[in-house]
């Protein structure tokens, strides 16, 4: 396995900049996830690493080799495609062994390696089948096996779980985490699914409009999102946002909108603005019987263990998560308290984070 280093990568399609100055250093054995909404440039970035897209500007290193001008086959990377891209006219066995055949391994060696991988992925009984005779989950395992059999420097995975149904996706996700952990693989993984990203990645590179907007561990990204975009994209159900005015009374600053008023945290005491975006996660509130922020329940969605409750606060609607034991009906009035630590404050004009809840 090897490290991967992307330095100031740019990609133009015609005049459109789809990957904008992306720089990420991926350590040997790291599982790095590019996550972002569709069209954010994550797949294009991955394809540049694979060599399937040319690089408009910048540099890609795998190990200590610059691979910019190497063809895909010479980069020693293996790719798992979203639609698996199995060779439809070859049996499972031939699919698994194809890359080895292309690299002129001898037949006995190919057979041995294919069998080992087939055993690992529970595909032994299917070696003679054609891809169209397999279920979605089996195809996915063949695609994975085809990558593993080569023992490549880096695994590139382009939304490999998105074509599986929900239950199988969970199971495969777990297996993939175990497998890549055992193999100590360097993995570059692309997904639009933030849950997948959070559960699998050692680090996430959150992308938006061609740029990496935050690169950090899942925990840090969740706790300290660098912008309103990241805060909204990571975490489910998504964070609530309220536009607040900054008011001053008797020398103390307050955050205020049409329905609530809170003492301003220290971090904005010296901020030269008169408005701020305040965010808080639906699960980081506490229901109280009195003295809290008050709103009217509009919709109650039962999620099993919890209830997602939509509340009308003046002009705004927010959502909160409450234990399912709470008896809540729509139309009812509800009060909750917001702990100061749970607040995320973002600059009103450029939407970047202003509070720092970190102790540093």
């Amino acid at each position, binding site marked *: 396995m090897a490290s991967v280093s992307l330095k100031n990568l740019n990609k133009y399609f015609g005049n459109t900049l789809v990957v904008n100055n992306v720089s990420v250093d991926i350590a040997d054995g790291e599982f790095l996830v590019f996550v972002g909404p569709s069209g954010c440039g994550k797949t294009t970035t991955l394809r540049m690493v694979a060599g399937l897209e040319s690089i408009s500007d910048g540099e890609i290193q795998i190990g200590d080799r610059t691979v910019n001008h190497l063809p895909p086959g010479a980069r020693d990377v*293996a790719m798992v495609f979203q639609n698996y891209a199995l060779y439809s006219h070859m049996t499972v066995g031939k699919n698994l062994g194809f890359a080895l055949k292309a690299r002129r391994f001898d037949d006995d060696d190919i057979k041995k390696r294919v069998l080992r991988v087939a055993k690992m992925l529970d595909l032994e009984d299917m070696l003679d089948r054609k891809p169209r005779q397999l279920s979605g989950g089996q195809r996915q395992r063949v695609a994975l096996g085809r990558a593993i059999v080569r023992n490549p420097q880096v695994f590139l995975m382009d939304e490999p779980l998105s074509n599986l149904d929900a239950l199988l996706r969970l199971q495969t996700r777990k297996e993939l985490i175990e497998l890549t952990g055992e193999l100590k693989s360097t993995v570059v993984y692309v997904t639009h699914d933030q849950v997948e990203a959070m559960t699998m990645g050692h680090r996430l590179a959150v992308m938006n409009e061609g740029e990496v907007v935050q690169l950090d561990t899942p925990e840090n990204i969740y706790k300290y999102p660098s912008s309103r975009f990241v805060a909204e994209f990571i975490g489910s159900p998504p964070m609530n946002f309220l536009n607040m005015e900054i008011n001053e009374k008797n020398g103390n600053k307050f955050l205020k909108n049409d329905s609530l008023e809170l003492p301003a945290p220290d971090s904005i005491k010296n901020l030269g603005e008169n408005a701020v975006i305040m965010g808080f996660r639906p699960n980081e509130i506490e229901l109280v019987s009195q003295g809290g922020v008050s709103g009217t329940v509009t919709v109650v969605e039962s999620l099993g263990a919890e209830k997602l409750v939509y509340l009308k606060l003046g002009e705004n609607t927010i959502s909160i998560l409450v234990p399912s034991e709470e008896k809540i009906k729509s139309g009812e009035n509800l009060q909750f308290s917001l702990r100061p630590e749970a607040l995320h404050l973002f600059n009103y004009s450029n939407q970047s984070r202003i509070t720092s809840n970190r102790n540093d």
Partner: protein
Amino acid sequence: MTQNDFRNSEARLGLYLILPAVVLVILVVILPIISGIQISFTSQRVVGSEFETVGLKNYLDLFGDKNFIASLGRSAVWVIANGLFQTVISLLIALLINQPFRGQNFVRTWILLPWAVPAAVTAILWRWMFDATSGIINTSMMGMGMLEKPLLFLANPEIAGISLTFVNSWRYVPFLTIIFLASLASVPEEEYEAAKVDGAGMWLQFKSITFPNLLPTLTVLGLVGTLWASNVFDIIWMMTRGGPGVSTTTVPVLMYDTAFYGYNISKASAGAIIFLLLLIIFAIVFIFLNRKQFILANETFKDLSK
């Protein structure tokens, strides 16, 4: 309206829609064949003349006729030569213009032109170009010093067949190219990408992805192309009349000659029927041996029409 009624009315509409085609096929294909079979059992010399029924005499005569047997052989050589040459050339052209390049759409459209040119025009055009004294091929090759004396493309029995094969291929290659292009378009791009990442070179990609995907199309074209090539008459007749000597006399040419210059329409009919039976047998055996590919081809064309 119940579902059954609906299905019936839909079926009836379908029937009405294919009726004109069925009538046309009966009038211009089935009836002439039946009439040909009838004539082949008689002694009729020209259309409208008196005749008597002679049973299998024409057939038995033909089996002893060296000219006929030789023309069957020439037809076989003609079909194989045309088939191989056209398939290889059109596949190469298709692979070439399937690569992205500027003006691709223009080339894809206009490459069909030779196929759209009427056979008579093609024949005259190439006779002109093949001409020994004023033809562009001989004059330019001699001008460049590649030839000392003109090549008799159509008058030399050893190369007339090759010249005709070339002209006939010139006509059909564009059409085959378009079919191959359509078939290439149905090969999933991702399989090539996977192969590239897997380290496969051009040849391995062709062998393991392109070729297996083209096989159903190749098989269908193998059948259709054989039947088309077998029945080529216009180009040969208009360029060499089967000559020089009998060097380019295939079965259709011989039968036309027998019927309208030898004034023996019943013998010609018998020959045509024998040829038809041979082609039918060939088609049945071919389809049986390649039944798997035909099923796949059916799926491919269904995919393409989506």
